[in-house]
């Protein structure tokens, strides 16, 4: 180790991977992926993994991704819910890994929910 920069480079690389371990704070954005049998069958796992990847890549330490059970609208799985403090919950449905990445960039990073993926739009 010849420089502090080298040390910080390792720190930043590994820190992102360890964010998962932080206790979730009050002001965190929570991303919930429906992972009951119906969700898994419909392809929820690739969606979940894409979300994890993207959030880590962008080092979004305030985002907490978790699995949840079935929310009772199985025909719309895979379902992803975004819960932001002080805002109404947004529910996305029929998700794919590609759609998930857009939700991260548009909704979580830029604060603009992707209207066409929401349950309201798809159910029409």
């Amino acid at each position, binding site marked *: *180790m010849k420089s502090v920069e080298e*040390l910080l480079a390792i720190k930043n690389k590994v820190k992102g991977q360890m964010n998962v*371990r932080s206790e979730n704070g009050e002001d965190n954005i929570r991303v919930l992926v429906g992972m009951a049998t119906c969700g*898994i069958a419909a392809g929820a796992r690739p969606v979940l993994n894409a*979300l*994890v990847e993207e959030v880590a890549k962008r080092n979004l330490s305030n985002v907490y*991704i978790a699995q949840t059970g079935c929310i009772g609208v199985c025909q719309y799985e895979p379902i992803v819910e975004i819960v932001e403090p002080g805002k109404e919950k947004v529910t996305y449905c029929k998700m794919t890994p590609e759609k998930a990445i857009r939700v991260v960039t548009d909704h979580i990073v830029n604060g603009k929910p992707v209207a066409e993926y929401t349950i309201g739009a798809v159910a029409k």
Partner: protein
Amino acid sequence: MYRAHVLVCGGTGCTSSHSPEIIDALNEELKAKGLENEVQVVRTGCFGLCSNGPIMIVYPEGCFYSQVKVEDVPEIVEEHLLKGRIVKRLLYSETLTQEEIKPLNQTNFYKKQRRVALRNCGVIDPENIEEYIAVDGYQALAKCLTELTPEDVIKIVSDSGLRGRGGGGFPTGRKWSFTAANKADQKYVVCNADEGDPGAFMDRSVLEGDPHCIIEAMAICGYATGATEGYVYVRAEYPIAVKRLEKAIEDAKAYGLLGKNIFDSGFDFDLHVRLGAGAFVCGEETALMTSIEGNRGEPRPRPPYPAVSGLFAKPTTENNVETFANIPQIVLNGPEFFNTIGTETSKGTKVFALGGKINNTGLVEIPMGTTLREIVEDIGGGIPNGRKFKAAQTGGPSGGCIPEKFLDTPMDYDSLLKIGAMVGSGGLIIMDDTSCMVDIAKFFLKFTVDESCGKCTPCRVGTRRLLEILEKITDGKGTMEDLDTMEALCYYIKDNSLCGLGQTAPNPVLSSYRHFKEEYIAHVRDKKCPAGVCKNLVQITIDPEKCKGCSACSRKCPVGAISGKIKEPFVIDQSKCIKCGVCIETCRFDAISRK
């Protein structure tokens, strides 16, 4: 990239309750389900709640599973990791509330704790240097080497108010400045990980859970005092700690964080591990250094102090593991971070190994000045079986007891000294009303008699005489004069012994005599042991009113001391009875008692 992390405790406690098998089973099960690239399994150090081990914590949810068995693993993988359904029956009961899962740091056990020395234990993988770096590891060393002079570092440590955690409580900054002031061609840093106090295991836990922080702290000490070489003296009974420390040293060398020209600063530092055979006296600093030099671990007279002539007769700084564990945080965050925790003369936190008659046994780190009551009632969850708190022993065989009337005493150096106890190295044993204080004093004294190195007479012979007096008292043969002799002998041993072992050996006797004089007198004058512990002073008797004459007890008695006619009251032959207590447990009618 892993979406979930499963942390499994790999501390000594959980390892002995099969956490390695749990880790193997987890890895296998994850593979079988194709989850091995989504879920990471991490073996950590001790979480502190060892009595509830094996401990597992699953992130991102932060679910705290306790007493996990190998058989539970498939369910955890299938339900929690695959389907996202928390396995409620395995949750540490207090975290399972109606609405949601309570985070661990809001449970009674953790709520009042403040983790500085133990901050990474149970958080990172101690065998992965990069995880340590990710939680700011080696940044304090980098700061010292690239921004601070040795004098600056000593000033920060002095200003923090840190005092030695090995038992003595000597100001660490001042100790470092002594070594720094001495000119020599070679100086050393020594870390004392001998941890001889029976019942204490905080140093072990730090080495097992966060070995790099000790390496970093020792290198910082080396820079501050002008030493380029260090030794960690660990007891050989700590194999996991030794293995992780050795791995950590190897990795630190590979990353250039130990060795030559660290951070291109011109500073060199190298580290060695030495194993101690586990003699208590080898924890005494001069004996420890003699032992590292390859000689029989006997203390030598001070002065000269180690700062002048220590290891290999060179200026040496010797500190305890927990003392070192605080250093990186202090350097990184500044002295105020530390000196705003604690009391006027005792800054920062202290780790205690909580044991004995208490519901939550384990490791607790609390701000100095937390009261004993908070530790016992809140963190420790009270005394089991509805029993009553009687006393707490701090400092093990060198320490003293704290009786119930001092439950509200703040745990800090000066408050405890004032009542004849001490902070000590951190053993904290809770006793309830079934403990006999004379017997406890005898237990600790027996330990020191066995461990006395024999070099000086007051300790070698004196402690033995003292033990004989205590044995006489607990046998019911003591006289009131014996009590006076006992007290005088205590002071004689304290004043005339060569090293700390002898100088502190009488403490458990003196402090229990001070706070529980009436209990000593009951043994001597009334030939009674109020707690019912000293076998020669208790009688096991059958109450003829309650006895139904069922003969169950007489069939269980190992020495055939009970006889009687069926359906008539049975009697115990006191000359045969060995007071084993088996009959008491056997009788369904509660007819037998110990008095």
